[in-house]
């Protein structure tokens, strides 16, 4: 007594196979579209801008004349600001994560703090710009300087570093801590000699994300007073500055074709700097990771 006839059964099987193939195809198509757009963008950039990159482009200041425009000021400004932001975000972020995960682990304070930090990650970046303007530029009288800009960006990326560092610290196995304590280590020694080295790769990942975010930020820096046209290199942490995204934006809003090419070239330089910084962090991360695994 067949409840399901043979032909019914065959149809179902054929349909399932077809659905499987269609889904596979859909996923593949999505990947192609996403990667294709990126590839297209990169290709367009390279075509437009790579010819424009030469030594004079890298060492000249901006200019009203498209042929003479260079990104020296913007490039140095970006590098300095990102270094300040990176150092401050790393120090504050890792210390905060250590406090929340090691010293105050199960306290109510830690729970509230972590909730708020996660929320801070979603705050629009312009808000940090206004915050930076009020606190660093005005109240602390740093002026519209590299230092103020770097600190503003440090606050912006701080939640990223804290979250990544917290995850990394939490992932350190309790057995390693116990083993250290059992040998007579103090809490500080356990953290410094065991937890931090183990968590370092995860912390570096957080730094990569943070630096990548910081280097591309425009709105908060404009809000706290970064310039658009800078005919000098920032010579001290308290000098005024501009950054690559601002310079690029400035050029794209000009009508001349020469400036469009300069903008594309500027983007390429920005990407290269980003790649170099990330490579540095990945190198550091691998050194700690491959050592003893």
């Amino acid at each position, binding site marked *: 007594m067949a409840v399901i006839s043979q032909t019914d059964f065959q149809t179902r099987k054929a349909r399932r196979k077809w659905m499987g193939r269609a889904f596979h195809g859909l996923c593949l198509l999505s990947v192609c579209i996403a990667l294709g757009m990126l590839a297209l963008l990169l290709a367009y950039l390279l075509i437009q801008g790579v010819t424009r990159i030469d030594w004079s482009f890298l060492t000249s200041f901006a200019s009203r004349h498209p042929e003479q425009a260079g990104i020296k000021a913007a490039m140095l400004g970006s590098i300095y600001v990102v270094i300040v932001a990176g150092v401050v975000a790393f120090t504050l972020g890792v210390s905060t994560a250590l406090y929340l995960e090691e010293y105050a682990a*199960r306290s109510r304070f830690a729970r509230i703090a972590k909730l708020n930090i996660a929320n801070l990650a979603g705050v629009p970046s312009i808000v940090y710009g206004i915050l930076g303007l009020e606190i660093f530029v005005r109240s602390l009288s740093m002026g519209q300087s590299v230092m103020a800009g770097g600190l503003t960006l440090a606050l912006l990326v701080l939640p990223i570093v804290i979250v990544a560092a917290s995850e990394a610290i939490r992932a350190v*196995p309790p*057995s*390693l801590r*116990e*083993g*250290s*304590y*059992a*040998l*007579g*280590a*103090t809490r500080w*020694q356990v953290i410094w*000699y*065991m937890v931090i080295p*183990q968590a370092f790769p995860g912390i570096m990942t957080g730094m990569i994300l943070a630096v990548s975010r910081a280097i591309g930020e425009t709105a908060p820096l404009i809000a706290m007073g970064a310039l658009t046209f800078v005919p000098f290199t920032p010579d001290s942490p308290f000098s005024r500055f501009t950054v690559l995204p601002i310079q690029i934006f400035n050029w794209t809003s000009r009508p001349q074709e020469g400036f469009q090419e300069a903008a594309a070239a500027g983007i390429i330089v920005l990407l290269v700097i980003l790649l170099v910084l990330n490579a540095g962090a990945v190198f550091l991360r691998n050194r700690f990771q491959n*050592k*003893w*695994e």
Partner: protein
Amino acid sequence: MQNLDPILQTRGLNVYYDTKKVVTDVNLDVARNRITAIIGPSGCGKSTLLRCFNRMNDLIPSARVEGQVLFDGLDLYGPDVDPTEIRYLIGMVFQRPNPFPKSIYDNVAFGPRINGFKGDIEEVVVRSLHRAALWDEVKDRLKSSALSLSGGQQQRLCIARALAVEPRVILMDEPCSALDPIATLAIEELMRELSEHYSIIIVTHNMQQAARVSHYTAFLMVEESRVGFMVEFGESRQIFTNPEDERTEAYITGRFG
């Protein structure tokens, strides 16, 4: 116990997790340079009791210890005692080997370094590896990762690590339960050698091991209230052949556990 020369003694030891009592009124003498086994069914508080001896329960925020633990007369839970100062004297080996993700050399050197040892660390490392019966197997690769060792070797490395800081007592919390039988025998052999110079307390759920290896045995149990207490303590020979308490007899003959 008349002839027992105690290095550690507990007096009225009670342990609580928050308000729940888990170990009640334990009075145990641990003999100097002998192996004392603590046996009992799961959940009777053996590990909790063991961790009282080196104040590792301090690391658990909800744990509270009442009573005295005397180490050559000094109360380890006295007001002026800093746990980190005594932990190297009472070393611990854990159930699952936990070598640090460093080289073999750095694992053994870790203890002396963090305790501020000023002498020749290399000499200490070599000596400790010899004492843990591991030297011959690792002498050519001291700089390689400790994680590349087998389970039994890792556990002997953990023993070497504990020995490097010159303890007087070694606490072992089911040290062989994660190891194969051959590695287990190697560790038991090592324990017998070590007991000439160190006092050893081993928690084990393997009664044959306790009978093989220990000089004295303490039997712990829980009842319905779920509080652990000591039923009987004596020379292992006597406990395993002619126990005084019928509950001890029930446990060692396998009627429960």
